[in-house]
C-alpha cells in the first residue's frame, strides 16, 4: 500500500521547490564571478527593489494562475491608475491614490464575470483589456508621461539599505499567502485548478469562486500598485513596455505555479520573483549586451514553463 515516507524537512522543501536550488546556485555562482560587486549593499538593495516590482505585479495574478486561468491586466491597472491619480489629485488631494485599489477591484470583478459567465478565455480577454487600458492611458494623459508629486512619503527611507517599498510589500505578501494556504477560498481555488469538474461535483460554486479569484487578483494588484506607483518613479509611461508584462509571468512560472493550475501559489511566486531578480542582476553585472539579456529572459521563461508542465515526476524522494 502507500508507504508513509518521512523526509528531512529542508530536503523535502528543496524537492518540492526545486527553484530554491537554482536560487542558492545563482547566488553562489555570481558571488564567485563578481566577488567585488555582487555581495555589496548597493547590489543587494537593487535586487530587493527589483524583487518588490516583480512580486507586487505577480502576487494577484498568481492566484488566478492557480485556478488554471491567466490574468495579464496588472500592467494596465498600473498605467491607467497612474493617469487617473494625475487627473484626480487636484480634486481629491492625496485620497486620489485610492483609485488604484478601486480600479483593481473593478477590473478584476469585470474580468471575472465576463470570463466565468461569458466563457471567454481569460488570456485573450485580459490581453485585450490591457490594450484597452493602454489606449485609455494614452488618451487621458494626452500622450505624455505625467508625474504626480506629493506621494514621496510612501517610499521615504525608513530602514537603511532596505527599500521602504519592500517593507510595504510584506503585509500584502503575507495576506496573499495566508489567504491561499489557510482559508477555504484558497482551498477552493486550488481545487478548481486541479479538477474543475470534480470541484463542481463536490458542491463548490465554481463560477462564483472564479470571479472571486479575478477580483482578488485585481484587488492585490491595485493595492500593490499604490506602492509601485511611487516605487517606479511617481509617474507612468504612456507606452506599454512588454517586459513589465512578461517578467511577472516569468516569476510566477519560475516559482513553480504551472500555467495549467492546481498547485503553486503566491508563496512560490515569492521564490520565483527572488530568483529572477538575482538572475537578472547577475547578468546585468556581466558584460552581456542588454538585448542578449532579453533573449536569456525569454529562454528562461520557456525552460520554466517546460519544467513546470512536466512537474517533478522525474524526481524520486528516497
Amino acid at each position, binding site marked *: *500500500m*502507500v508507504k*508513509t515516507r518521512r523526509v528531512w524537512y529542508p530536503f523535502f522543501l528543496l524537492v518540492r521547490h526545486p527553484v530554491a536550488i537554482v536560487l542558492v546556485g545563482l547566488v553562489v555562482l555570481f558571488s564567485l564571478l563578481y566577488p567585488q560587486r555582487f555581495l555589496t549593499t548597493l547590489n543587494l538593495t537593487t535586487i530587493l527593489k527589483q524583487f518588490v516590482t516583480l512580486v507586487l505585479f505577480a502576487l494577484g495574478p498568481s492566484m488566478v494562475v492557480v485556478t488554471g486561468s491567466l490574468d495579464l491586466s496588472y500592467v494596465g491597472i498600473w498605467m491607467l491608475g497612474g493617469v487617473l491619480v494625475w487627473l484626480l489629485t487636484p480634486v481629491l488631494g492625496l485620497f486620489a491614490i485610492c483609485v488604484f485599489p478601486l480600479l483593481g477591484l473593478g477590473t478584476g470583478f469585470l474580468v471575472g464575470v465576463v470570463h466565468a459567465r461569458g466563457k471567454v478565455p481569460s488570456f485573450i480577454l485580459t490581453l485585450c483589456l490591457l490594450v484597452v487600458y493602454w489606449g485609455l492611458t494614452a488618451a487621458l494623459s494626452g500622450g505624455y508621461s505625467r508625474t504626480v508629486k506629493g506621494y514621496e512619503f510612501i517610499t521615504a527611507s525608513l530602514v537603511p539599505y532596505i527599500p521602504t517599498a519592500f517593507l510595504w510589500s510584506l503585509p500584502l505578501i503575507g495576506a496573499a499567502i*495566508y489567504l491561499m*494556504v*489557510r*482559508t*477555504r477560498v484558497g*482551498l477552493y481555488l*486550488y*481545487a478548481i*485548478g*486541479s*479538477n474543475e*469538474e*470534480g*470541484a463542481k*461535483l*463536490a*458542491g*463548490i460554486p465554481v463560477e462564483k469562486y472564479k470571479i472571486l479569484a479575478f477580483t482578488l487578483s485585481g484587488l492585490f494588484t491595485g493595492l500593490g500598485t499604490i506602492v509601485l506607483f511611487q516605487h517606479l518613479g511617481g509617474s507612468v509611461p504612456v507606452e506599454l513596455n512588454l517586459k513589465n508584462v512578461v517578467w511577472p509571468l516569468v516569476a510566477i512560472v519560475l516559482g513553480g505555479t504551472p500555467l495549467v493550475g*492546481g*498547485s503553486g501559489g503566491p508563496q512560490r511566486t515569492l521564490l520565483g520573483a527572488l530568483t529572477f531578480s538575482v538572475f537578472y542582476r547577475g547578468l546585468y553585472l556581466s558584460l552581456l549586451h542588454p538585448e542578449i539579456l532579453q533573449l536569456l529572459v525569454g529562454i528562461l521563461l520557456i525552460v520554466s514553463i517546460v519544467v513546470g508542465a512536466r512537474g517533478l515526476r522525474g524526481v524520486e524522494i528516497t
Partner: protein
Amino acid sequence: MRRNDTPVLEVRNVSKTFDTVVRALDEVSIAVYRGEIVGVVGENGAGKSTLMKILVGVYAPDRGILLLGGKEVPFPRNPKEAAQRGISIVYQERGVIPHLRVYQFLFLGHEEQYRGPWGLQSERMKREARDILDEFHVVCDVESFMYELPLATQKMVEIARAVLGVRLESRGKDVAPVIILDEPTAPLTLEERRELFQNILRMKETCSFIFVSHIIPEVMEFVDRVYVLRDGKLVAHYDLAQDAVTEEDLFRAIVGRESLAYTFEARKKTVSSEVILRVEGLTKRGCYYDVSFELCRGECLGLFGPAGSGKSEVLRTIAGILGFDGGKLVIKGQEAFSGEPPHVRLERGVGYCSGEAGKELFFHWSIAKNISIVNLKKVLGKFFPVIRFGVERSIAEGVMGKLEIKAPGVHAECYSLSGGNKQKVSVGKWLERSPDILLLEDPTIGIDVGAREDIYEVLLEMKQKGISFILVSDDPKEYALLCDRVLVMRGGRVQRTVSAEELQEVAVG
C-alpha cells in the same frame, strides 16, 4: 427476514420526462434495506443515471414519492439536502481533485464546520480524517496528495468522503447513509476491483449501497438484489440470494434479446496456416522479457494477465508506440525494427485500436472525418488527391449502419455521442481499412452490453474476412468470445498458452 424491515430508502412510481418527448423514467419503484448492496443495471440511456440524479437532488421528478425509513419526505432539491437525508453519490469519474491532500479532499465542501479563528483548523481535519479512514480500513497518509494514491485507494477515499458528507450534513440526527456508487470500477484493473469490493463489503454494516453498473459478472458476485432498467422502465427485479439467476438471464433482461456472448457457435474456425506475425524473444527491459509467439492469418490471440504483466506493453510495441531492446519482430515475412513510428507499422498492415475514451478519437471532428483519417487512401481521389466528400460520406454511412451507431448523421461531432457510440466509431474505422493485423486494447471498456455485442459482431465478421487480432482486455469473457488462443502473462513473462475456454475456468477459479 429482510422483507419485514422497513427499507431505509424507497421510491415509488417515479417518472421523469425530458423535453416532453423522451420518457427517461416511467413508474420506477425501488427499495433499499439497511446494510445491503442493491444493484441497478441497464444499458446506457436506460434511466439509471436519471434515477440516481433524482435521488441526489440534481433533477426533480415529475411524479413519485420518496420514503426514508418508512416516512414520506419531499425529494431533495440539491446534493446538500440529499446528504442531510442520508443520500450521497460517488461519481464514475472526474470526482477526484488530484492536487488536494487527502484530508482536504475528504472535507471539501464541508469546511464551514472547521472554521477557526485562524482560518481552517487543519489539525482537527487531519485527526478526523485519520479516524474515518481507519474506520473504513483505507490505508493512506492523510497528508499525501490525491494523485499519489493508487486508483482503488482514491475510490475508497471518495466513498469515505460520501459517508462523511452524510454524517456532517445530518449532524445530530440518526440517518442511515445510502451511498450511490456510479460505475465505481470503470477505471480499475481486476485486482483493484477485488480490493475495492472487499472494502465495500466491510462497510456494509454501517451503510447501504446502490451499485450502478453494467458489468454483469461483477453485479452477480457482489450485490444482494438487483433491479434491471430498460428504456426507463423497471423490467426485472432479482434477489440473488433466493432466485436462481444466471448471467444469461440478467443479460436478457438488460438488453431484451438473446446474447451473442453465450452462444459459442458464433465463433467459427477461421485460422489459416499462413503465419502473418512472428515474435521471437522480444524484450523490453523493465516491461517484458523474452516473449515469443506466432500469429496466423484469421487468428485472434489474447494476451491475458494482471496489470503490470507487460501485456499492454507488448501490444504497444507491436503497434510501434513503444520500442524494444532485444528480440525479433517479423511482420508478413519482413523484419520490423525498434523505433519505427506507428504510421510505418500501419503501412506494414498493423492497426492499433484502443477503447480508452478520447485516446484516438478527434472529439471535435465529425464521425465521417474520424473514419476517414485511417482510410485516406480510399477517400482521396486517384489522380488529384483531394478529399472526396461523397466517398467519405458513403464509407461513414456504411460503418454507421453496420455498427448501429446512434447519431443524427455522419456529420455529427464525436463529442456529442454517448460512450458506446464513440467506441463504435473507434473500432468501426478499421472496418473499411481492413489491416492485416488489428491490435485491440480494451476495445469495449466502460460501455454497455448492447454496444459490446455490436462491436463483437463486427470484429468476428472481420476475423472471418481473414484479419488477425491481438487482444488485451480486463474481461475474461471477452477472451472467451473472441480468441482462439490466449497467452497468460505475469511479471513480464509468458507463463503458458491456453485455449480460451480453459482461460475462463482459470479466471473464475
